[in-house]
């Protein structure tokens, strides 16, 4: 029978996007780091014993779930067949907004494009084209995004100043409004 703490570790690691340090788990669960480590080890062993297709591993100073190495061929197929390989125009527009308006929050990009951009932004981030560069100092402390070094390399640019100038182009009033007000927490 799994303990409440073990179940909480499973729940947290299941939704975490990066490896979670045992210290943070200890704090969230209000138990000692030693106990967190013992529970994580026990969980990892139970998945192994149950022959699960995933594993709980310690990596980069923290714990995370990942696919079991045995199943790599399936995961590779999923990567190759399950995603479309072209940059969609939605993705390109989103990337362009981040490039020209950085640092910019997801809510601002969303307001400019008039659609939810969470999925697209996540993809761009996983691809290494954009990254978190700061936090908005205002209420909500929205994450602000910018483009990466890799983005510049792929486009053959030296610095952001080498992006083609926009010239006399003036964005519509809704865009200006979105940029000015988009930092407010989502309605």
């Amino acid at each position, binding site marked *: 029978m799994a303990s409440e703490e073990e179940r909480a570790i499973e729940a947290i690691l*299941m939704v975490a996007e990066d490896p979670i340090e045992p210290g943070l788990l200890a704090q969230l669960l209000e138990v000692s780091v030693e106990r967190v480590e013992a529970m994580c080890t026990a969980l990892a062993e139970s998945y192994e014993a149950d022959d699960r297709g995933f594993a709980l591993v310690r990596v980069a100073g923290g714990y995370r779930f990942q696919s079991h190495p045995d199943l790599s061929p399936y995961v590779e197929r999923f*990567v190759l067949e399950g995603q479309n*390989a072209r940059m969609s125009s939605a993705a390109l527009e989103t990337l362009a907004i981040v490039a020209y308006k950085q640092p910019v929050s997801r809510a601002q990009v969303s307001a400019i*494009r008039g659609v939810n951009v969470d999925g697209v932004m996540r993809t761009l981030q996983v*691809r290494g084209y954009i990254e978190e560069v700061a936090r908005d100092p205002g209420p909500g402390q929205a994450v602000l995004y910018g483009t990466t070094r890799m983005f510049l390399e*792929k*486009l053959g640019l030296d610095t952001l100043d080498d*992006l083609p100038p926009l010239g006399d182009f003036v964005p519509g009033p809704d865009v200006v409004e979105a940029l000015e007000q988009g930092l407010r927490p989502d309605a």
Partner: protein
Amino acid sequence: MAGILDPMAYDVATPVFEGPFDLLLHLITREQVDLYEISISRIIDAYLAELDRMENLDLDVATEFLLIASTLIELKTRRLLPGRDDVDLDEELALWEERDVLLARLLECKTFKDAADVLSRLAAAADRSVPRRTGLEERFLSLTPDLLAGVTPARLKDAFIRAVTPKPPARVLLDHVAPIRISVQDAVEELIDELPRVGVITFRHLTQELVERLEVIVRFLAVLELFKEGLVDLDQDGNFADLTVTWLGDKAVTLESLSVEEYQG
């Protein structure tokens, strides 16, 4: 709780209503506790009070409020005037039809309100779980195609300009909403100019040049405003007789001195 008995309590107790149906549903279902005591007069009072509170008279909202108020007021008139031998049958049927439409719309509105409650519960239950969205481990990233292949700086610029160029505004169909050409404030202004000069006039004469039914309603609301302010007296000699409006106030009442100034907008 004095709410049920005290019509003025609506002013204190009602939250901000989103629209005329919201308010009407609230008023009627609230009175449901006292089913046989439901009074259209009190509903109308609360309704007018709500109109009164609307600082900036949003045209769409105001139109809906007024259309419903007009139906309510007509219904009230029928209640006040029990003798109905000389009633125009077509008019009577039209009123019933209007009432049924209003009833149907209220029921529809209530249906979706209740559906929204259930959606809210579903969303709350779903919110208790967080999906895993971690994505690929690093070792698989090299398999993913380079999405930026073939993307030039010029294409990026074009994409940006495309993204921030204002889209053509979505057309709003207003066919179903009659345009409102006059506000209650304007109507009050006209009345405090006209009434001191004529002294006594029937409502029929006061509205004879108005074409739109809605304008008549706005006038009627304006007259009610002045009645509330004690500036006019209203008289009706008998069933279906003309409503007589008698000016009681000063010759030189200005709009600013009336509380209706909050209708500005």
